């Protein structure tokens, strides 16, 4: 049994480490914290029974997201946390140099994506970068499925308008 689990975790790590790190980086704005969060997430797998494949991704992203929020919350204890999602997940502040770097490397579309409200950008990434369904995104973000649909729609609308303008 131990053997199986180790093997399973190994496979899960191999498959999800990069997507999770990518996701966590967006949330924490800091790749060290992101890695820490992802490590903690995978460590929690030891407590779980082996999950079905389709449940694994939402589980990982949800645990990872909560871990990132914990880390951010504990970093900034003075911030009001009335609306967890809105208060915690604004895009991390970027210095002008970082902005410049991003501008050079990211495509116009991704730049527009970065300007969307944090929640919209997050669900759009979960949808198009991590290929999750609305339902899975709802599990990850603790939003309702219709809320997810609305956020994605609104984000897509904005992007469509901006892409049309370019």
């Amino acid at each position, binding site marked *: 049994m131990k053997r199986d689990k180790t093997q399973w975790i190994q496979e899960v790590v191999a498959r999800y*480490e990069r997507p999770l*790190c990518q996701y966590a980086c967006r949330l924490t704005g800091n790749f*060290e914290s992101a890695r*820490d969060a992802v490590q903690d997430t995978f460590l929690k797998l030891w407590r779980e029974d082996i999950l079905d494949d389709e449940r694994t991704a939402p589980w990982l992203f949800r645990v990872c997201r909560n871990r990132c929020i914990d880390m951010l919350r*504990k*970093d900034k204890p003075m911030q009001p946390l009335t609306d967890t999602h809105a208060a915690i997940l604004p895009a991390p502040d970027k210095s002008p140099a970082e902005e410049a770097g991003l501008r050079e490397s990211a495509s116009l579309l991704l730049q527009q994506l970065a300007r969307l409200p944090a929640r919209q950008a997050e669900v759009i990434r979960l949808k198009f*970068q991590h290929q999750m369904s609305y339902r899975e995104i709802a599990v990850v973000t603790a939003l309702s499925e219709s809320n997810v649909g609305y956020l994605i*729609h609104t984000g897509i609308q904005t992007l469509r308008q901006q*892409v049309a303008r370019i």
Partner: protein
Amino acid sequence: MKPIDEVQLTAYALGELSTAERAEIEARLQAHPEQQAAVDEIRALAARLEAELKNEPDVALTDEQRQNILKAPSGRLAHFPWRALSGFAAVAAVLAIAFVGSFRGASRSLDPQRAGATAVSRIEVAMADSPADRSKDHLQAVVELAAATPEEKTGRLVPLGNESLHDLAEPVAMPVAVAPVKELESAPRPPPLAKPMPIMAADASAEAPAFVNGFHDRSRSESDFSGALDKKVACRISDGRPASVRSFGGAWAPCPPAPDAPFVQPGNTESYAPIQGNAFKRIADEPLSTFSIDVDTASYANIRRFLRAGQMPPPDAVRIEEMINYFSYDYSQPKEDVPFAVHVESAACPWNKAHQLVKIGLKGRELAAESRPACNLVFLLDVSGSMSSENKLPLVKKAIQLLARQLTANDRVSIVVYAGAAGLVLPSTPGSDLATIDAALERLQAGGSTAGGDGIRLAYEEALKNLLPDGNNRVVLCTDGDFNVGITDSEELASFIAGRARQGIFLTVLGFGMGNYKDDRLETLADKGNGNYAYIDSFSEARKNLAEQAAGTLFAIAKDVKLQIEFNPARFDSYRLVGYENRVLAKEDFNNDKKDAGELGAGHAVTAFYELVPAGVESSPGVDPLKYQAAEEKPAVQEGKSAAASPEWLTVKLRYKLPREDKSTKIEVPYTGSFSDFENASGDFRFAAGVAAAGFLMRGDSAIPPLSFREVVAWASSAIGDDPNGYRREFLDLLKNAAVLAP
């Protein structure tokens, strides 16, 4: 037919609908071709998003993190500082390989694939003074090797909480590690700290890309490879500091440049509590000024870091009292059997000649080495990922080694680490057993997230377990202040620490690093723990705090030291305390023994300035004369006439408790000054006044008249005196930077 709801339409375009819903939408789309166009557009956009997001740079875990994950025992969450473990094995393995033969041959023989669940650790050792020198003692190698199998365990780590210790009972299987450690111990050890310490890439993740390429590309010649290494080492020591850093925007980037640069750079998340400068107070309204002493110096070291990088420090990072107290002044020791001597001096205020500046200095008694109490020190080290840069954990290790060399067989040292979990890596060990202490330090590596609270509990438990009833019991917290898990409620943490201080265990906080340095939190912790707080940004700063002034850092000669100054309203109209903004107490607190205040270490000195407005010069600067109260006030001043006959300017009242007592003792020292020119004041006075003025300028305090850094340099440069350690000269250099940077 009504147009389709847009949210529904998007869901349809993205394939989120059930078969039935889909059919319905498709039917309706026939009637709305413009909506069909929208669907096509959404799908095109979705495809673009997918394609572009796929190409976004990504980040992976470090090999070490991956290894940690797989090492967790089945069914239990890891509660061990895994990184410390694997670091130990990795260091040992590197040494083994290095001693056995050339690293190229050795590393080639290792096949990471073969190792299966065994993960790959990367570690760097570079001890050479020069690239040409490649003797056994001067080892230069970057070795990538397989080490630390999942079965490895060590008996030195104690998990927190109630979990069983069954892991510890398992046999210690560390074949790679054991032999080389013996070899290390029997080999003649280089005199500690005389040579550059091994520069370890404690951050296994921070492999410079050029490095990785150089290593993996086996076709590259050795000289290419060591060239890259030499450059890296040279870069680290280029400006004479062991932890060389380069500034990057508002934040600091480690040198060499950060690894596989993520798409988001770590932001600057330093935090400082806001400081509101003390205002002038009218003596008629408030004849008493009360504050707690503060011997901390962290703010100065932090300011220095900014100025060296060519940046003005944020105003809230500037605590003038800590700047003044960074420097030592020539105060004579107490003559009688009291812990302090009080020294008062005054002269015209250099930034406002009409005012007087009064300097109050407290000097703590020095402790002779043989008469100092035994120490029970528990080092509580943050080994989280954020501590991995050169100027953090590697510097912490050096700092502890320095301090350990001040200890004797009567002293005890323990080391507790915390990251994702907390562990005891060095159970209480005699201070004379340097080999054991150094070996424990060498095993440390950074990684994991920070659980400040759990670590703190474990450290205090360890301190309590080894409590020396007549000794100096102290937890020394070394961190960048980035506590992520554990007791994160600041109040709870503070009250925990304050409670332990009452049991006789004090807290010293050594702040390290930059970028996400939590100055405000660290200072609060040290205050609650009856402790002191220093910021260590370089080896020389470690030396100052832990070798030259070790006694002051470690031995309290008095606690809850409060000062209350009573001013004579007949001589002066108003006063202003320079600095100590967050140490100001209510006048009632002075006689309240329950009210906590600062601690004074052996040989420590504390200096405070008051700026006084002599009676009749002007009314309180910045405050209009009161229109309605003027008449009522007259009698009060009249009444003071009898006392006013006294030529005294002020009385310094001092309250303190001996470290083990609960009742305070009071000392009163009256002072009568004479109006003298600033130029005639002592060198210490002029220098310290210069430091205060510089602090006001950095604070952007409009409460002092216009003044330039150049003027301050002019006053202070005539007051350098002996300056045996060069600290005052360094300050003048910083001010010259500030003069250029000032708006």
